[in-house]
Structure formats: C-alpha cells, structure tokens
C-alpha cells in the first residue's frame, strides 16, 4: 500500500500541496480530481519521488520513500501528462529504450515490448516513427512505456488530454482492463468527471492544494443527497429575472447559461411554486425543466463554489 501522510509542498510563497493525506491499496483505481492548478500534478510528482516534499511523507509498505525512493520506483510506473517519448524513434525503439533503462532482462524485453504494443493497440504501427503518430496513438504509447516492467502501481497524470473521443474511449477501456487483468493499482488524475466516474473505485477531490472530499463514488455523491439539481429551460431570460432569481434563498449554486439556468434546492422543496410566479412577473416563458441526480460536477460545485473546468 502507498500512503501519503501530511504531504506539503511549497513553491516559494505558494502552497501547491497543503497537508494532503491519501492512500492507495493494491489493485484499486483511485481518482484524483480537481481543476487546473488544484495541485494534482504536484501531488503526483511527490508520490512519484520526482520532487522532495516540504513536509510530510510518502510511505510504501510502511517505509518512507523520501530518502529511499528506489523502494517505490521498482514497482511504480508513471504516465506523465506530456507525451514523454522520442518522436524520431519508432514505437518499438522507444519501448526498447524505456525497457532497457528499467533493466528488464534482455531475454524478456522483446516479449514485453510485443505484449505492451498489443495492449495499447499499436502492433501494426510499431515500425512507424512517433512523429507520424496521431495524438491518440502517442498517448497510447506514452502509457505503454510505463507498463513495460509490469508495475504494481501506475500513476497516470491526465493521460487523455487533447485527444479524440475514440482514442479516449480506447485508453479508458485499456486502463480498466489493465486493472482487472493485471491487478495494477492506479492513481488517475483528471479534470474529466466522466472518466473518473467510469474508472475509479475511490476518489479524492482536490482544490487549492487541499483534499476537500474523499471516499467512494457513492459516498462523495451522498454529500448532495439532501439536495437536488434543477435545470430550467427558458425562451429567454432578462437581467431583472436573473437578479430576482439570485435573491431567492431557496436556491443555491445557480449557474446561468444562455437559455438555461441550473440551481440546487433542498430535496423536498416545491421549486415550481417559486419559479412559475417569478417567470410570470418578468414575462419569461418557461419551456421545460429537468430534475437531475447529483453528479460529481455538482458535488465539486457544491464544495468549491465553482465549476471543475473554471
């Protein structure tokens, strides 16, 4: 098990990671969710032993890895956010390189390269230079390079950034499969709710360097179990209508789009008895409404007061 204890990292006067505590057990997928600048990548870099913490510790099997990083590095694979590959080498040559520096025995290496190429679906393109790959193929190879030494723990830092939906879906399936078949434990950071919902057993939500919520998906969503999210569709809305709406104490987390407004209310609130007279008073046509089950996005909004991708 990897345990993170009171981990803090300061960059000059900025507290990038503030007293973070988390753990990951063998075979589980743990999500680390938060907007850009929340401190996810720094936390990942600290756990990966790439940088030294200002305070706190990272424990692997109850032993600190701060002064003995090799302990963890031998069982750890890291998929960085950037495509960390040599673009003038082929997929096979890249894997050969990363496999050799992982000191995989020569006899095993070719077998592992073939297996990884198959795992990431690049067998047919193995002899192509990476610079001619699509961004989705590069992302897949980027993951493959971290799998060569069969790590028991895999850290993935936003591995689907900037790729098409098809490649994204392929990667997510591959990660799920990796976890189920090889029992690889995965720490997955993302600011895509749907990815985290699809993959993760447990979840940590980060904002401004702190863990603001933790638990299983159900536990996290239960934070909003006493509330419901309403989306109303309007023909148009006016400034005075919005102003009147925001003064209503019954509503919270009001999000205004062009012809759609969403807000949160207490579970048993009769919101229509409030909204309909307001529409009538401001001469606004209500085209429809939708009552939503709370999502992670709603939870995040509830916890931080802002949308995840703000």
């Amino acid at each position: 098990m990897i345990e993170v204890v009171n981990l803090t990292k300061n960059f000059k006067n900025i507290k990038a990671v503030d007293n973070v505590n988390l753990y990951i057990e063998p075979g589980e997928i743990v999500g680390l969710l938060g907007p850009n600048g929340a401190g996810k990548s720094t936390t990942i870099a600290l756990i990966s032993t790439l940088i030294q913490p200002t305070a706190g510790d990272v424990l692997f099997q109850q032993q600190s890895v701060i002064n003995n990083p090799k302990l963890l590095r031998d069982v750890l694979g890291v998929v960085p956010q950037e495509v960390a590959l040599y673009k003038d080498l082929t997929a096979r040559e890249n894997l050969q390189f990363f496999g050799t520096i992982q000191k995989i025995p020569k006899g095993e290496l070719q077998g592992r390269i073939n297996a990884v190429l198959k795992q990431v679906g690049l067998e047919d393109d193995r002899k192509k230079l990476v610079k001619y790959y699509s961004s989705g193929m590069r992302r897949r190879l980027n993951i493959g390079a971290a799998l060569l030494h069969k790590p028991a723990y895999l850290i993935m830092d936003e591995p689907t950034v900037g790729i098409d939906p098809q490649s994204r879906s392929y990667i997510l399936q591959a990660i799920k499969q990796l976890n189920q078949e090889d029992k690889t434990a995965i720490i997955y950071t993302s600011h895509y709710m749907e990815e985290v919902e699809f993959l993760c057993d447990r979840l940590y939500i980060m904002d401004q360097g702190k863990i603001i919520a933790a638990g299983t998906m159900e536990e996290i969503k239960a934070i909003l179990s006493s509330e419901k999210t309403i989306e109303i569709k309007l023909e148009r809305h006016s400034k005075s209508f919005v102003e009147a709406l925001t003064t209503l104490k019954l509503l919270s987390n009001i999000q205004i789009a062009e012809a759609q407004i969403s807000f949160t209310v207490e579970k048993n609130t009769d919101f229509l008895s409030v909204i309909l007279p307001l529409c009538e008073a401001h001469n606004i046509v209500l085209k429809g409404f939708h009552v939503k089950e709370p999502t992670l996005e709603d939870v995040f909004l509830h916890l931080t007061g802002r949308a995840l991708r703000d």
Partner: protein
Amino acid sequence: MITIFKTKCLLLLRNPINYIISTVVICLFVYLMGHQQKEPIAIASLLNEQETAQALQALQKISYYDYSVHTEQKAQELVEAGEVKAAIFLFDEQFRLVVANDFMDSALLQKELNIVYHDRLQQTALLQAFPAQQAQVKEIFTQAQITPAFHIQYQNSKWEEAPIYNRQLSTLFSFSLFMVIYTTASGVSYILAERNMGVWNRLIVSSISKWQAYTANLAYAFCISYVQLVFIFSIFRYVADVDFYGSFTFTLILIIPYLLCVVALTIFIASITNTISQFNTMIMLIAISFAMLGGAYWLLEAVSSPFIYLLSYISPIRYGLEILKGGSTWNELLQPISILLFMAVVLMGIGINIMEKKADT
C-alpha cells in the same frame, strides 16, 4: 548509461542535417579564408637593394601578403587611399609601420621586422666599435650567422624562432573552437528538451541513477563535438596537407580539456535557462562574445583596450587557442589546461546543482 548514449547517437543519425551543415560550414570557411587573394602591402625603403631584398625575404614568411616596393610618398598615398592595408617604411636604424584601422597583423609584421632590425643593428654596432676592421667584422658576422658558436634551441614560443604564425591553421583553430560550441550545445540541449517533455522524469523513476543519466548525456555532447573536430582537422591534415605545427595527434589530445570546458559551460547555460529557445539564444550570445573576447575573430595582440583584454581571460576560447598555437612546452601548456579544467569543474558543479534545485522548485 550506454543505452542513453546509443539512443542519442541513433537520434543524431535520424536527424544529422545540423551536424553535417556545421561541419561543412567550418571546413568551407577555413578553406576560403586560407585561399583568399593575397592582400597587398606597400614597402618604401631607404636601404640599399641587397638590404631591402633581405627584409623582403624575411617578410615573405608571412605568405598571405603581397609586398611591392614604392617610393615613400606613394606608399603613404596607397594606405591613405585604402588601396593597401599597411605600408612599411624601412630606414637605416628603424622602421615605421602605417596601417589601416582594421589591419589585424601589425604585431606579426612588427615581429618579423624586429628580427631583421635586430641583426642589422647588431652588425652596425660592431662596425662602429671596430671602424678600422670593417671588412673583417663583416666577414666574422656573416660567418657567425652561418656557423654560430652556440647552437641554441629555443623552446619558448615567445621567442622569435617559434613556429611562424600560420593564418590558415589559426583560422581553422579559431573557427572550429567557436563553432563546436554550437555542436556541444545541441548535445546538451537534449537534457533541457527531455526535462520539458517529461522523458527526464521517466529516466529518474527508472532503474538508472541520476548521475548515469547526466553522464550519458554529457558524454554524448562531448563525443559528437570531439568527433566533429577530429573529422575537420583530419580533412585539413590529410586532404589540405596542413601540418598542425608538426604534431597532429598531439593537437587532437590538446582539444580535450577545451571540449570538457565547453560541455560544462553549456550545461551551466542550460541550468539558467528554462526553454530550448532561451538556451539557444543564450548560447548564441555567449559563443559569439567568447569568440570575440578569446581571440577567435582577431588576434588578442590587436586588442588595444585593457578592459577588453582583461575580459578575454573569462573566455575558454582564449585558453583553447593558447594550447593549440604550437611550439609550447609542457610547462606553458599546463596553465591554460589547468584553467580550462578548473572552469569545467566549477561550471559543471554549479550547472548540475542549479538544474537539480530547479527541478525541485
């Protein structure tokens, strides 16, 4: 470590164009500089025909000038009109040198003329001391020059008998030492690029140690630079028949401390820059400044400002050229070699330290 080195070589083979271009540019530049048309120099002489011929013979050791004899007034006019870069006025007991602003070889001409006048004044002094035995003195003097009483072998490059300045060789060394900085920088820039694209992090969390990653990259930067210099020098040695002051192999050994220093310098620059474009800009500025200060563009003897001359001591090119100028004894080589190695150790230490600190902040 070998894997990293081999991979870098493979990447160079996949994309060799810059390496080839820089090699060709050095060769072409040196070749053209060595084969440019001879520059004219005017000579006005008040000496007799035989003495003028002797002086001309001495000056013709500097083979890239074309000497023509004129009247004193004509020689002066030619310099003023810019038709010649220099005029030499030979008088009985002294000479005068009139040169254009951009003439770089004054020191060299002076050196040759000093030798001529040294012998000449010595003979005049003897003749004056023994006015009654002029014929005898002349004969003894000539005899002494042909068969001196002592055979003195000078080992000091500062002495007049040291290997004569060879412009093509000097251009070859200057330009090679300057241009090779860019080659070394291209090797070291991998560290910066790998840090930016995340490959470096992969190396760090792999089974190899940090020092192995650094060593492999620095060894690669050193080797591509060394191979480039060996290739260029070999072309001039075996194709253009340049003699390298008679010690080609020794020259190839002597460039090692210079290259070590350049590798350290580039790693230092990489440590204080954040992006490849910043690094390239810095390298360009530093390389050109050091080439100017270190005597790659012009002879240090031509530098008149004491401050600029003082600044030349921070340029590794100065010490590189000092090592390669030929005719130096081991003792004389020891100082520039030690300075280069000292600079290498200090810059490397600071550079890697800053890089590691930056990675953690």
